[in-house]
């Protein structure tokens, strides 16, 4: 039964990711004073792409064709680790947050290789930029997560969320820092403004898009879907760690239903914040990203320190 719910939760993750992307698009359009496409447009786009014949360069190796499947699978596996509507599921008990970061790194490794594989200048440029950013983002992310795990004395997300739930509403300075750090990292890792612009057509400014410029058809669909999933993962991570209330602790239908509604509500609100931020800010210069991520790292570090100084003695 538990395993069934775990699988169901992962499927839900995969199924809802395009909806979140559609919602963000919708919010952004409204903020820019224009009509938004349907909420379900990302689904239509994915379906359209699967119907198209993929065009693969003659120079591409097997890696280029396999990479979308590897990236998508690794991202789905990362999703199994994160509690979406319920805690204490067997999948999240068997792997912790370090594994999740590992899955992300694994997916990124293949994405960067695929970008290099066809030998175009843009792919290589995108891969190089992506690796630069991720090498700075990952320590910052781990720092934010360590703050959390020190409070809960576990690296397991499920247990950590339970711990926060049991403690009730306590204002922890360390969590404020960790939340800020994780938000900054999430924006960088998912390629949103001001770090990267997911909707640009300017090859030379691209990071994520530059790596996947050569992809088409179902390959592109899988990669797009994986990035939507990644965006949702970060959203769920922020929503459920820092505001876990509403998540199902038992496995009856009512609790699960509430859990689903709660996370959808939380994500909808987070998406509005993201859309507002993306409307307010221009993209920063590429070389500013390191300052931005150093700041995220510093926030994570401050979170850790404030935990040790202010909270650990209790």
């Amino acid at each position, binding site marked *: 039964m538990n395993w069934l719910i775990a699988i169901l939760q992962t499927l839900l993750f995969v199924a809802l990711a395009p909806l979140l992307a559609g919602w963000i698009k919708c919010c952004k359009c409204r903020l*820019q004073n224009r009509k938004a496409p349907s909420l379900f447009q990302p689904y239509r786009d994915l379906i359209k792409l699967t119907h198209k014949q993929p065009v693969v360069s003659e120079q591409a190796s097997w890696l280029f064709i396999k990479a979308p499947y590897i990236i998508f699978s690794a991202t789905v596996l990362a999703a199994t680790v994160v509690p979406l509507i319920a805690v204490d599921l067997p999948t999240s008990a068997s792997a912790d947050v370090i594994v999740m970061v590992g899955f992300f790194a694994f997916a990124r490794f293949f994405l960067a290789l695929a970008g290099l594989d066809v030998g175009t*200048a843009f792919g290589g440029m995108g891969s190089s930029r992506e690796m630069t950013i991720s090498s700075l983002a990952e320590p910052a992310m781990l720092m934010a997560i360590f703050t959390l795990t020190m409070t809960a004395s576990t690296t397991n997300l499920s247990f950590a969320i339970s711990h926060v739930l049991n403690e009730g509403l306590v204002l922890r300075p360390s969590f404020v820092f960790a939340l800020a750090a994780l938000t900054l990292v999430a924006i960088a890792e998912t390629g949103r403004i001001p770090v990267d612009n997911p909707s640009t057509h*300017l090859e030379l400014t691209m990071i994520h898009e530059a790596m996947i410029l050569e992809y088409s058809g179902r390959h592109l669909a899988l990669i797009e879907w994986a990035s939507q999933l990644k965006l949702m993962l970060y959203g769920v991570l922020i929503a459920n760690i820092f505001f876990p209330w509403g998540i199902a602790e038992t496995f009856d239908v009512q609790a699960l239903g509430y859990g689903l509604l709660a996370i959808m509500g939380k994500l909808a609100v987070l998406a509005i914040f993201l859309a507002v931020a993306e409307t307010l*800010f*221009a993209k*920063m210069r590429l070389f*500013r990203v390191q300052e931005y991520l150093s700041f995220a790292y510093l926030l994570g570090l401050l979170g850790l320190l404030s935990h040790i100084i202010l909270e650990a003695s209790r």
Partner: protein
Amino acid sequence: MSSSNWTADFLSRLSTDITVTQIDISSVTLWQIESHAWQQFAELAVQQNLRWAAGWAEHIEHRFFINTCFEKQGEYLLLRTIIDASNPELPSQATVYPAANRSERHTQDMFGIKFVGHPDDRRWTRHQAWIEKNYPLRKDFPVQGTPVGITPPDMHYPFIKSHGAGTYEIPVGPVHAGIIEPGHFRFQAVGELILNLEERLGYVHKGIEKIAEGREPESLARLAGRVSGDTTVGHCWAACMAMEQAAGVIIPPRAALIRGILAERERVANHMGDIGAICNDVAFVFAQMQFSRLRELWQRTNATVFGHRLLMDKIIPGGVVCDLSDESCALIKKEITELRKELTEVILALDLNSSLEDRLYTAGFLSEEIAAAFGTVGYVGRASGQDKDVRRDAPYAPYDQVTVKVTLETQGDIASRLWVRYKEIRTALRLIENFIDRLVAGELRAEWQTPVAGSEGLGIVEGWRGEIISYIRFDADNNIARFYPRDPSQLNWPALEKLVLNNIVPDFPVCNKSLNGSYSGNDL
């Protein structure tokens, strides 16, 4: 300041071995010199701070006429030499004037004239669409061209190379991810820093100069309106002005005022589009959406009042084909009042945004020296301290009735180019109101007089990108013998190669957009 002073002064400075024959054509001074003194003259001209403005050639009965247009203090000087077609060689002026570089290469590709001592004699306009040693603008070349079937790939153009650890090459275009005109950019970079940029244009060569030959004036005006779609009013006006000069036609005052209104409306529309596009290139989409909306409303008024969103084919030789009723005037004035209010609001959102400021200030810096050396015109020049505007310096009807305030900035960065555009919108709005107030009842079109064979004219107007120079020579029977339009982009494109240096690769698109050269106008 009497502008005619410098020509007399210049004449006195010429060494005795340069023989100048002064010929009168309409409003421009034309000097004819011996071909051997071609470069020597340029050396003197650069000492006297003459700006190189345009260069073109013409094939007339076994001889090539080669022309260069200089400008100083709003006075234009046309320099001409005639060489024999059997041995077409001429000393290069590009050694002295970097602005002449691509123009001479264009002439070399189109006429087979060799410019001796040219610092870079690689082909420019010729890709692979016509056979080597075939020269399209010679009279014996057929108008339909010599098609070679499928144009073979242009694989062997010798780009400038860089060597050393960590340097690499980024080829961009001619086909881009966005829907823009085609052009190839070759970057040499180390890390993200741009070491060198080389432009390779010519992908939208349409043979404008060749297909202009033999046209009637009205047909040529239509063609000129298609040199660059976004400057249809500017090019059409310049071509018509040149033809009117050649034919000795003076347009009625009402037609001149309406031409002015059309040109300023084109300026406003394009500047608004550009400001939005610059912001979009740094992912500040809000501004783009707002400016797109304003531009769209503006163009819809164009459609209601003048019958065309982009104002195409409204200017004809001898006048205009559209009139302004009193209701239309009221509508335009009301629209301007509303636009001013909206602009004030939107521009504030841009001005107060520090993340936008961070991207636009100091990026894409073009120094005053380089801007002057390349003779950059329009907003690109005016953002780098080049105080030039044909509307003020060499006023033509209807600008001779008004005072045109020229916006000048000296920082030379992307932000300067954006602010020059914004202030020019405000100036243009005032000008439109002014012209409407001055509208007098009268004819819209002067009667056309067939010009005598061989008569020439030079139309110089300030298009929205800057100074446009259009040269026309008539043949017998009202037919065009030669049409050469010099789009402002021709002078501004080389400046892009300079202003991106010391910037990083991902900042190139916004640098390029801040300059926004026309590919079509450059490639002809």
